[in-house]
Structure formats: C-alpha cells, structure tokens
C-alpha cells in the first residue's frame, strides 16, 4: 500500500489534544501527544493577590474544579503557614471524594463503556448486554442512571460550595461555608442513595461484600458466584474487557506516582511537613519493585519539545517558567510541558494512587499483570466503594465535631512559597506558588494529564501515554477501537483527535 496519512479521531474526551501515531502495517511504532490549546493561566496569575488563585484556578477545569480549589488553597496555606480548622479539612476531603465518585461514574459509563457498543464488537457474546447497559448516547440503562446519580452525589459539593463547578468555598484557614445539620443530613442522604444505586446496578452485591475481595482469585470467584454478579455493570465490564484482551494493552511506563491525598484532619497543620494522608504519597519504582517516599523537590518540568521558551533541562516548578513560543516548524509539537519525577517518566491516576496506598485487590492484579487498560478502568469501579464508606465516616466525624469551627482566622503573609498537592479524580494535581510583596510572583500547575500526556523530555524519552500506545495492534485503521480503549482508560482530559501517520512518515501535518 502506498504511504498515506490517515486521519482519525476520538470523541467524548474533554479538552484539546491530538495524538499522532506512526503505524507500521497495523502496529503502532511511535506516538506523539499534542496539546492544541493554550490559555495561559499561569501568566494570568502573576502579579495578582494570592487569594485570586482561589477564584481563578478552579476555572482551569470544569470537571475537577474542587480539586483545583483544594490544591490552590493548600499551596497558600503551606506558603503562609496558616493554621487550619480540622473541620475544614473534613469538609474539603468530603467534597473532593464526592467529585471523585462523580467522575468515576461519568467517566466509566459515559466515556469508556460506550466503546463496548462499537459495531466492531457485534459478534461478541456480551455485545447485547453491553448495549442494554451502556448504549450511547445515554440510551443504555446504566448510562441514563449515571446522569441522574452523578448529579445527585455532587449535591454534597453544592451543600458546601453553593454551586458546582467553580465555587470558592475554601480559603487559607478553613472553608467559608457554614456547617449545618441540614447540609450534613443532605450529605448522608446523598451517600445513602448513591450507595444503594451502586450496590444494585454497578456491583450487584453489598459494598461490604465487595470490600472483602482481597485478591485477584477472590474477584474471579466472586464473579462466578451469582448471576447478579456476572450481569452487574462491573461484571459485564470485567468479562467483556478481558475477552477483548484489555488487560494486555496500554502498559506505558512502569513507574507510578501519587502525591498523596485526604489529609488527616487533626494532623494537617503547620509546618505541613508530615503529610499524613488517607491515600499516602509515594513513588513506585518499576525497576526495583519498591515504593519509595515522595519528595516534591524531585519534580521537574522539561520544555525541550514544547512550544515554550527553552531553559534547558528540567526545572522545579518553583523555578518554572511559562513563556509560550509557538514555532510551527521544527521539532517542538505541543503546548504541554513534560514533568518528570526523579528524572523518570511516571504514570498517575487512580490506579497509581491506590496501588501506592496499598489497596489489596488492585495490588494483587497489579503484581500479576502490571498496569494496563483493563486494570485502570477497573479501578474506577472499585474506588467509589471505599470512598463512599470514607465519605460516610467523614460526615459522622463532622457530626461529632459539630461545635468546632470550620475556619481559623489569621493574617496572610506577604512572602512565601508553597505547594498544594492532592489527588484529583484523574490523578495527582499540584500547584506551586511563590509570593513576593503580597503578590503572586510565580504560579505553576501540574495536572494529572500534564504528567500522563506529556511530550518527550530533554532526554527524548516519550511521555506515558505516548509510550502506552507503542506496540498496540489496530485491526481496522478506520475504526481504531483498540486505541480508543487505551486512551480512555487514562481518562484523557482532552478532546483527542488521533492522526495516523502510516508507514514511517512522521509529523508531517497539522497544528
């Protein structure tokens, strides 16, 4: 076949990204992730009052705006060493968990699962069942219910923030919103309703039962146990996904990173050095198979292949620069930077967070099969179960500490540097801020997607997504469904347009 360029796209992904692939026959041999939009948040923040970050940064993303707000608030707290009300940490954690639970459902049932209904799978034994549950757009039973229930669980964020997305109810020292019996009752009711739906439709069993699954073998035994398990949403996903071999694709880099999340309310206080978290931070070294402690100073961003003024090598975000420099010709290809940890390419996301936090079921799968498309998506089914429990626990704690304040007043300083690290629904998110003379002197945000979807770095090593496409076999280049699964399992926060460059031609067009 003559060399030709095939253009091909993905739908149902948020944001702006294009992926260019080099395909040899039907196998992907190289890949480039191209961020196609630049808005310049970091430049907008410079020179503004530090608390402006609380209003501006949530607007980075309408899907994870609670996460952005939490990270921004934490960064200022660390910079100013602000004492903070334990109840505020509880409320923040609760809202962040609600956002994650919402995102897990919307991502799984509105973005990932519809691909099972692709015409390419007509011959699959589970196709009919997949259609019944997931058929897009919003026709499948689970898909429809997801719209309703994910909205309901967001009621928790609304109870405290008044609106979603983009409320600014957190500030250094606490939260601005009051704690009322009503809001707590509303939260519990929302958690109850959601749990009920989750048990009935998604799991096909009680949450307690699910949480008793500790190993891969436990899971498969559970799956075979009853019809209810097999035909639940997770049952159908698990069987269909494995029948397609999704547990053998999309590995990417072997290194995992999680910067930790859900601070222990009583212990998260200045000097903020001991980071005790429900989901502890860590770096899993894929070569030594060990989890090491995480040190934010080991983060560096490269711009060698990005459209920014080059500074040579990697830079820690506090020293970082965001000076766009668009050059259509040459080897730079994206508006995304390339963050690295300890000079390694890492992958982030719910799977990394939970494996590093020591989740038994996921670790068992991870040890047997490594990170892969199926396991990443399976995590999105698994995570809400423990989060819902933790959310209920948090509400009860708030109930027990009802008479304590949600905010501690203290003067904000004029100088300082801080970083706010949390796990957003798609993985670890960090805000790094430097304040001079009461103004923001530097602000750098590293989102989970900037880690995962990063371009090549100064040493010309591919980013995690780029790496995860290599070797993938695509049967029908006009309907590259295999690729869709890999991309979606990463919950790309980007509208992906995928461009094939066949037969060794590279980057010859676009952008």
């Amino acid at each position: 076949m003559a060399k030709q360029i095939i253009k091909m796209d993905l739908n149902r992904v948020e944001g702006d990204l294009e992926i260019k692939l080099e395909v040899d026959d039907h196998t992907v041999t190289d890949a480039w992730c191209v961020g196609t939009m630049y808005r310049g948040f970091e430049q907008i923040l410079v020179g503004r009052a530090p608390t402006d970050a609380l209003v501006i940064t949530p607007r980075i993303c309408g899907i994870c705006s609670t996460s952005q707000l939490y990270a921004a608030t934490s960064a200022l707290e660390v910079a100013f060493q602000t004492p903070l009300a334990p109840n505020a940490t509880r409320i923040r954690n609760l809202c962040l968990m609600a956002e994650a639970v919402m995102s897990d459902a919307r991502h799984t049932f509105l973005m990932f699962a519809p691909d099972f209904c692709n015409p390419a799978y007509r011959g699959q034994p589970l196709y009919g069942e997949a259609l019944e549950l997931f058929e897009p757009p919003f026709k499948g039973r689970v898909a429809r219910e997801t719209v309703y229930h994910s909205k309901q669980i967001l009621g928790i964020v609304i109870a405290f923030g008044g609106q979603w997305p983009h409320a600014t109810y957190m500030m250094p020292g606490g939260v601005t919103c009051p704690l009322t019996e009503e809001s707590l009752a509303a939260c519990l009711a929302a958690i109850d309703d959601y749990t009920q739906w989750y048990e009935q439709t998604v799991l096909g069993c009680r949450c307690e039962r699910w949480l008793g699954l500790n190993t891969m073998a436990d899971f498969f035994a559970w799956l075979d146990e009853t019809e209810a398990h097999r035909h639940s949403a997770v049952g159908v996903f698990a069987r269909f996904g494995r029948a397609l071999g999704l547990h053998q694709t999309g590995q990417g880099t072997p290194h995992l990173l999680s910067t930790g999340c859900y601070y222990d309310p009583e212990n998260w206080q200045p000097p903020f050095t001991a980071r005790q978290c429900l989901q502890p931070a860590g770096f899993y070294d894929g070569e030594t198979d060990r989890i090491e402690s995480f040190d934010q100073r080991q983060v560096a961003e490269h711009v060698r292949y990005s459209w920014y003024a080059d500074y040579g090598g990697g830079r820690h975000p506090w020293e970082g620069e965001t000076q766009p420099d668009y050059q259509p010709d040459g080897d730079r290809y994206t508006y995304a930077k390339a963050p690295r940890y300890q000079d390694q390419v890492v992958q982030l996301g719910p799977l990394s967070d939970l494996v590093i936090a020591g989740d038994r079921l996921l670790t068992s799968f991870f040890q047997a099969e490594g990170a892969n498309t199926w396991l990443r998506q399976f995590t999105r089914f698994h995570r809400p179960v423990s989060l819902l429990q933790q959310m209920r626990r948090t509400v009860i704690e708030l109930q027990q500490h009802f008479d304590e304040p949600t905010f501690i007043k203290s003067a904000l300083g004029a100088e300082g540097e801080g970083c706010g690290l949390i796990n957003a629904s798609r993985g670890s998110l960090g805000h790094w801020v430097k304040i001079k003379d009461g103004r923001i002197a530097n602000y750098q945000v590293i989102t989970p997607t900037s880690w995962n979807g990063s371009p090549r770095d100064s040493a010309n090593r591919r980013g995690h997504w780029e790496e995860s496409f290599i070797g993938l076999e695509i049967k029908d280049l006009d309907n590259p469904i295999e690729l869709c699964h890999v991309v979606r399992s990463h919950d790309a926060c980007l509208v992906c347009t995928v461009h094939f460059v066949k037969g060794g031609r590279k980057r010859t067009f676009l952008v």
Partner: protein
Amino acid sequence: MYLYWDQLKQELSEQGQNFRGRDREATLLWMACGSCNGESMAILGAEGPGKAGYNLLDFLEDEGVRLLWHPSLSETSPREAATIIARILAAEEELAMLCVEGSIINGPHGSGMYDTFDGQPKRDIIRALCDRAQYVIAMGTCSAFGGIPAAPPNPSESCGLQFTNEQPGGLLGPEWRSRAGLPVINVAGCPADAQTMIKTMSLVLAGLPLELDKFNRPLTVGPCLSDGITKRCGTAQKVGYACVGCIGAKFPLSKPMFRQVELPQRELPVLLPPRAPIFMIPGSDAAGNGAPCHG
C-alpha cells in the same frame, strides 16, 4: 416578572409556536473554544441532593431538538463533526442554534493557532458558523466577554464573541446580527447556570421576543444562588464569600477578587433537633430539604 420554569413551560406549550410548529427543524451545534468545559458539565445538571433536575438530555427530548454535535457528549467523532460543519457552511444543513462555550482565542500574534480544530484556528470556524446560525448563544462569560482567559495580560489574546470585556466588538464586531436578526445572546455566568441556559434556549426556540440588556444578556441571566426575585447574588449569604461578579462583562478584572464574608455564628445547638436520627434516615425526606441549589 420572573417566570418559574413550570409557568414558562406552560406558556410555551400554549403558544405552540416552536420550531417544530413552524415546520423548521430545530438543530443545535455546541462548540467549545478556550473553555474549561464548565458549561458542558453544568448542563448535565447539578441540583441539590435528591432533586431530579432538568438537564440537556431532557431538553433535547422534550423540545424535539436535534443535536448536531457536542464535543464531549456526542457519539459523532471530530472528523464527522468536521463534515457536519462543512455541511452547515455549505448551507446543506440548517443551524437553528449555535452555542459557544469558552473564549475566542486569537493568539499568538493574532494567528489563532493557540486553539485549533483540524489544524485551523477554531476562531475562523466559529466566525463562519455564526453567519449560518439563526441564533448564536454565548454560553458562559468566556464566550460572551472573554472571561478568565482574557484577564490581563491576556496571554492567549482572548475575546468574546461580540465583546471584549465591556468593550463592544469581540470576534464578530458590534454590528453583527444572526440570521434571525439578533446579536449574540450572552448567557453570562461562570459557569452559566444550567437552568438559565435551558430556559434561554427554550425561549429562543419558541420564538418569544428576547429582551437583552446593554451587554446583550437576556433577562433569564441572574446572579448565582439568587432567590429569583431580588436578583441579588446569594453566595455571600449562603457560602460565605463575596460575589465575584461572574455574570459581569468585566469579570475577572476586579482586584482582588476574593473576599470572605464571615457568616454569623449558627444558632445554639440546643435549638436543633437531636442529632442521632440523622444517621438513620436512609433516603428519607432529609434529601428534599437539603442544600441550596444553584439558580
């Protein structure tokens, strides 16, 4: 007078004058530019717990609107979307409503290459589409006025469809009118409220006259969390920080933007009902009287 949703629906159905009635198919195309997807998320609905809100899907169904494309909700891929866009531009497909989310990005150096679709500046595609649409609705402050991305130093050279902040102009120029003879309808808000977006689209489809203020905002637009009668932002009172003015054309030029409003201490705990039962109301009507909802 402020119309409640049910009343409005009633009036619309009595009028029976919507696009269907007039024999013209109502189509909707949604384009996202320099956006955070906040409106797309909001229009999936987010009410207080336990409330079944009206969302985009219900709207499409009830009003018989055909969604031509939405970047994150449609099944159609961007490549097919490019075909749909081409058909609209070639006048082979009617476009009743064009909804735009996010600022119009003109950088770097006026080229528009900071935001591309299919290798072309998205800005140019939007401009062409606007000329084919019966109605153009800017969903959110970014597409109306530039919003957050247009904040100084405006690194992406962003503007709104017909304004740059409070300056008339923007992408289309102040004189521009849609096929139905209206300027861009600015459903301001950050994000624009879901019910406001839907109400506005319903009014447009019903062919009801839309009264626009000097920033071309329809009367449906109001501050967040307002009670609908006083039209005052309820954020300070309910959440404890001052209104950031997100429906204003100048948003976010104000400096500093964030101001806490300390809320009065809550009443004495003794006045409240005993706490214990709260743990035992699985799904009881506690859900109904829950949180304030947006709008």
